[in-house]
């Protein structure tokens, strides 16, 4: 008798009460993966979608062909941005717990993904983030107070109270408005890059998506359009293993790496240690150089781990082992860059503690200032008339009438 088909339902490697198990994550030794020419054909470098590009080894040295050979001051700036991201995240989580903001999303454990990539790109490159790359904001010079006012939906909120917390944007920082819907920014970034090519500039676009939302059609549209038009775009999949409670197997990660989606579309896929600042920097630099030479897009999978909850509305202890993050084989990105700088003789635990304290004070002072412009619980509040603005460039009659109606309703 023929065997009936059986439905395969992916099973998370470990659930609460079980021992963390990361044997499903293939690792390569630092320095072991060759760095091809940026003009290489996608078909000739498919191993990069399987192997793991790493630079920092277990003794904290930078090794191998992907070492970007960054100056010490660049490394220190990177460490500072990553640490600021973490200090900011920790502090904003507390303000949410105190009821000062409605919602927050931390990027703990993923700081290198955003910071190293933004540092490897030019300021004129356009960034289309998802909601967990706050490090991009710091590299692009966002002011803490401005970010906090967005979180607070207060009188200085850049979004005028229209968006959930963390959905920032910056025109001078070339940071696109974060949607809050998943994956939509991915093909938009490709369109932006197509326009750059049509206009003949050498700007490029970079965008980020979670491995979970790479399941959306938008992801595939992005790869298809990027491939067809050879758009100058960097497509980053942040594989942090978890989409709320759903492990990466449900986005199709059990059969092939996410980087391997690239070669299927004729786009190089790089599988990169996302907790290795130097590896992320080097991979971004490679992909950017490739795009600027007219060779088109690159798909970069950043293998990392979401060490915190999905959001302040989430409790990860209900779906994964408590000590999962500690057992993640690629460690912590801040700790690893810190140890590298210490190994170089350019950093110390004391300097690190002093920097953390300094950043904590900065964040605290900024919070104090931002709170003066209003919080959820205390005024001043945004003018409610603003609700009706920016639906269209010019307010149509029906919205003018509805604004009047609200005014009458509220006296």
């Amino acid at each position, binding site marked *: 008798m023929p065997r009936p088909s059986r439905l395969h339902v992916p099973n998370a490697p470990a659930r609460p009460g079980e021992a963390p198990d990361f044997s499903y994550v293939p690792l390569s030794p630092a320095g072991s993966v060759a760095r091809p020419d940026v003009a290489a054909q996608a078909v000739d470098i498919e191993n990069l979608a399987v192997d793991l590009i790493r630079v920092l080894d277990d003794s904290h040295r930078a090794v191998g062909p992907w070492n970007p050979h960054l100056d010490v001051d660049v490394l220190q700036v990177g460490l500072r941005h990553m640490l600021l991201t973490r200090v900011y995240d920790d502090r904003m989580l507390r303000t949410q717990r105190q009821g000062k903001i409605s919602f927050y999303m931390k990027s703990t454990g993923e700081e290198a993904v955003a910071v190293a990539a933004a540092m490897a790109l030019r300021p004129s490159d*356009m960034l*289309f983030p998802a909601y967990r790359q706050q490090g991009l904001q710091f590299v692009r010079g966002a002011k803490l107070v401005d970010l906090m006012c967005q979180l607070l939906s207060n009188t200085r909120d*850049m*979004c*005028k109270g*229209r*968006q959930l917390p963390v*959905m920032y*944007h*910056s*025109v001078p920082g070339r940071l*696109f*408005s974060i*949607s*809050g*819907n998943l994956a*939509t920014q*991915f*093909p*938009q*970034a*490709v*369109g*932006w*890059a*197509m*326009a*750059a090519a*049509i*206009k003949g500039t050498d700007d490029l*676009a970079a965008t980020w998506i979670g491995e979970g939302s790479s399941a959306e*059609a*938008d992801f595939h*549209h*992005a790869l*298809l*359009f990027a491939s*067809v*038009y050879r758009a100058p775009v960097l497509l980053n999949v942040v594989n942090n293993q978890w989409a709320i409670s759903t492990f990466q197997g449900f986005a199709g990660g059990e059969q092939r790496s996410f980087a391997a989606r690239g070669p299927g579309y004729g786009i190089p896929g790089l599988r990169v240690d996302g907790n290795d600042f130097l590896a992320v920097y080097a991979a971004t630099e490679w992909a950017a150089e490739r795009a600027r030479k007219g060779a088109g897009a690159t798909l970069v999978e950043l293998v990392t781990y979401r060490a915190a909850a999905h959001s302040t509305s989430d409790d990860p202890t209900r779906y994964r082992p408590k000590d999962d993050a500690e057992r993640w084989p690629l460690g912590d990105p801040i700790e690893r860059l810190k140890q590298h700088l210490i190994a170089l003789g350019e950093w110390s635990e004391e300097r690190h503690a002093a920097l953390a304290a300094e950043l904590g004070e900065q964040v605290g002072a900024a919070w104090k200032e931002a709170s003066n412009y209003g919080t959820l619980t205390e005024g001043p509040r945004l003018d409610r008339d603003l609700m009706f*603005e*920016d*639906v*269209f*460039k010019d307010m*149509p*009659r*029906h919205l003018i009438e509805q604004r009047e109606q609200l005014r009458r309703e509220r006296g």
Partner: protein
Amino acid sequence: MPQMNMIQALNSAMDIALGRDPGVVVLGEDVGYFGGVFRVTDGLQRKYGTHRVLDTPIAEGGIIAASIGMAVNGLRPVAEIQFADYIYPGYDQIVSELARLRYRSASAFSAPVTIRTPCGGGIRGGQTHSQSPEALFAHVCGIKVVMPSNPYDAKGLLIAAIEDDDPVLFLEPKRLYNGPFDGDPNKPAVPWSTHPRGDVPDGHYTVPIGKAAVVREGREITIVSYGTMLHVAEAAAKGLGLDAEIIDVRSIVPLDVETLVNSVAKTGRCVIAHEATRFGGFGAELMATIQERCFWQLEAPIERVCGWDTPYPHAFEWEYFPGPQRVAAALKRVMEAR
């Protein structure tokens, strides 16, 4: 004045926009080399090149998303969705992204994208090539929705849409591409050259978005319609010998409430006609708006003439289509009510 059918008028609008503004790009399935399945983009790629008039993959979500990105980078994309029935893979990008980008970013970013798409039935298109989805977009905040009923308006509205700083969904009633249509499929086709609005200037002009047109002034009853049904309703009223005031809505969002209300306040009677399904259709919004403002002037209940609440059936196209008989019956009922 040159005579154009609606296809030529739309082509002329894009030709002018491409010529005047190097930021205008046209993209969509089959629009480039081939010139579009309805020939609306014929010759544009030859004239402006493959970088300005792009063929795309069959991926409506990708077409809309790429257009948004292009617009954010300073271009003015004119995206064609080959049939309105195919627009749904792009619906999320339209509803959640295109329409709301300006709002969510407090005008830091905006995307002046025009989406052109042929809609409506009467061409033996069956249930996947005949839909009129305007209500699904009228309900969305932040995107303008227009539907012309003749070549003159088609060109002027399309230029206005492309030049508009907000996104515009531009619905093209494809039964009207080659000529006006009074709803009787057995009559020989009539070309636009027989119609005054088939006279279309060669050069640049706009028809303002947000303004309805009083196509015929009258005293007895107001007919509110748009697209193909405007011509059907006009024929039905003529057949009954009514002195009807006929209003072409043209701009569904924003809606020109004033023109509608002024007319119904004068006539006291109103019939609304559209081809789309009835339940939750845009006619309901028109009816509610007019009723709220003209209740005390009304001599009779307002009626709607629409497609049935079924998918558009291939074999029963003309039983589905709200033809002149259905319109005439409604006109009679509203005229006789007291």
